[in-house]
């Protein structure tokens, strides 16, 4: 097997006496969609915050392998460099857009570092240098591409806060993609979407993964999304990994079922059947 894109080893995060994540290790491979699932409070978002530099992990190593083979230790990079040098982008569980700025401006802010270099740290930009104008034109083209792709192009000049909820979620993904990441971390992208929007989202994520060489790490509660699009599933419960494997295997893992339903082991078999029917219904609804 090739070197994984992201390798999390013995990650532990403690808040005072509370251990949010305990000795977690998993891998996310290039060109794959890896899903991180688990019941509420399992520590999924905390894992994200460690990977994207919002928390400094108490223990453990997070290694990201660049295309040129260079290995970066994410927990040692300052917060903003994880995006710029490490090329990891993320979205947030409760959407964080620049609400008073237009969609286009949101996507240009995402290309800050590229444009900043092109503007000669603003000095050339103030005098209207041509090189900056060219760079800005390219940046707008990239933004247009992602607005088309997410179906938001007609609203490019509206304020982001004016968008309906589902569009805001897609805009956040478009904004993260404008940083041209190797790894895109999505925190519950399907939360609050209606079934149609959820299906569109699946297509968008698959296309991001296949066409743009961006691997995806996904937190999601909606099992239909997870089961349909992910190549690999990691299950957390109380900050520990309880299962890891392809979606079908994980789906039938009794430990996972028990964690989700909180049932005794001997009841697992009985509930398994129920789950299958529920899942089938859910799939049917989604269609």
């Amino acid at each position, binding site marked *: 097997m090739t070197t994984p894109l992201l390798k999390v080893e013995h990650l532990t995060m403690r808040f005072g006496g509370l251990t949010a994540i305990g000795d977690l290790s998993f891998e996310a491979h290039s060109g794959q969609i890896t899903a991180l699932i688990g019941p509420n409070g399992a520590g999924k*978002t905390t894992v994200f*915050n460690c990977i994207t530099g*919002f928390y400094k992990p108490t223990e453990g190593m997070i290694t990201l392998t660049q295309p040129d083979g260079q290995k970066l230790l994410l927990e040692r990079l300052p917060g903003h460099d994880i995006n710029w040098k490490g090329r990891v982008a993320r979205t*947030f569980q409760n959407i964080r857009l620049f609400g008073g700025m237009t969609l286009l401006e949101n996507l240009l802010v995402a290309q800050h570092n590229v444009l900043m270099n092109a503007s000669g740290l603003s000095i050339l930009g103030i005098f209207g240098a041509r090189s900056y104008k060219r760079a800005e034109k390219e940046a707008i083209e990239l933004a247009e591409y992602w607005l088309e792709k997410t179906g938001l192009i007609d609203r490019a000049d509206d304020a982001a806060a004016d968008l309906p909820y589902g569009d805001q979620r897609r805009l956040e993904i478009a904004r993260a993609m404008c940083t041209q990441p190797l790894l895109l971390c999505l925190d519950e992208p399907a939360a609050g979407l209606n079934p149609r929007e959820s299906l569109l989202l699946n297509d968008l994520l698959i296309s991001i993964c296949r066409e743009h060489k961006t691997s995806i790490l996904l937190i999601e509660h909606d099992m239909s999304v997870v089961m349909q699009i992910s190549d690999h599933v990691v299950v957390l419960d109380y900050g520990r990994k309880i299962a890891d494997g392809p979606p079908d295997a994980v789906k039938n893992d009794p430990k996972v079922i028990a964690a989700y339903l909180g049932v005794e082991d001997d009841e697992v078999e009985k509930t398994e059947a129920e789950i299958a029917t529920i899942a089938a219904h859910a799939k049917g609804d989604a269609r």
Partner: protein
Amino acid sequence: MEVFVQQLINGLTLGSIYGLIAIGYTMVFGIIGMVNFAHGDVFMVGAFIALIFFLLLSTWFGWALIPALMIVLVLGMVFTGLWNWAIERVAYRPLRGSFRLAPLISAIGMSIFLSNLIQVVQGPRNKPVPPMFTQSVPLFTENGYTVAIGYKQIAIMVITVVLLAVFWYIVQKTSLGRAQRACEQDQKMAALLGVDVDKTISLTFVMGAALAAVAGVMYIMYYGVVNFSDGFVPGVKAFTAAVLGGIGSLPGAVLGGLLIGLIETMWSAYFSIDYKDVAAFSILAIVLVFLPTGILGRPEVEKV
């Protein structure tokens, strides 16, 4: 040693005054998240109200010093409370829930208005009061230097401690205090559960002003003089004290006040009286750089 003890006493006296003003800042900040910039001037208005009532009672009615002071304390609290109630009602309440900077600018405007109002109606000159409680209790003598604690210093510290106890009781044990703490957490939810948010906030302003009025009485007692521009510097220092102690925390405000008072007197005694305010502000900046939420403030958890 002897200088140190003397400065300790002076610092605690001064710190009591700052602490009482600081409580007004910290309570208002806690409940509506606003820096009430006019609070220093409310303190100054309180000092003027006290001055006028004191003159009224002692020179017109010929009351004795102690009963006159008692009445002045009560009347000062009532009328200063009324002032702050009116200020909140007119200048802050309409802006509640609006743009964060609007109430701040409104408060700065109020501060300018109050100090100039007093200048216009009471005149720009210093207003002296006859010296009172001039005696002091000698504590000990060392190297020919007698350390003494003045009667007024005793009075200031005793009044502060008593008031803080009463105040602590109100905030911790009464339904008003519970309503205040509820509004601090979540005003909408408190309103849904039947707390009269407007009234609670108004009472918070009244309480803050009452304590500032007491500080005003102490100020004229201690310094023997008051001027329309005397609100700004003690106001800024009390605000500094509130931030130093951890804004929103009541014990923090008192602790911060005492610290600022001590820093100021100690610096004046050992280094240079000219730079005492520079010292107070520098220590504020240094503390905040290392302890961004103040000494007793709750650490702010960044939710992602």
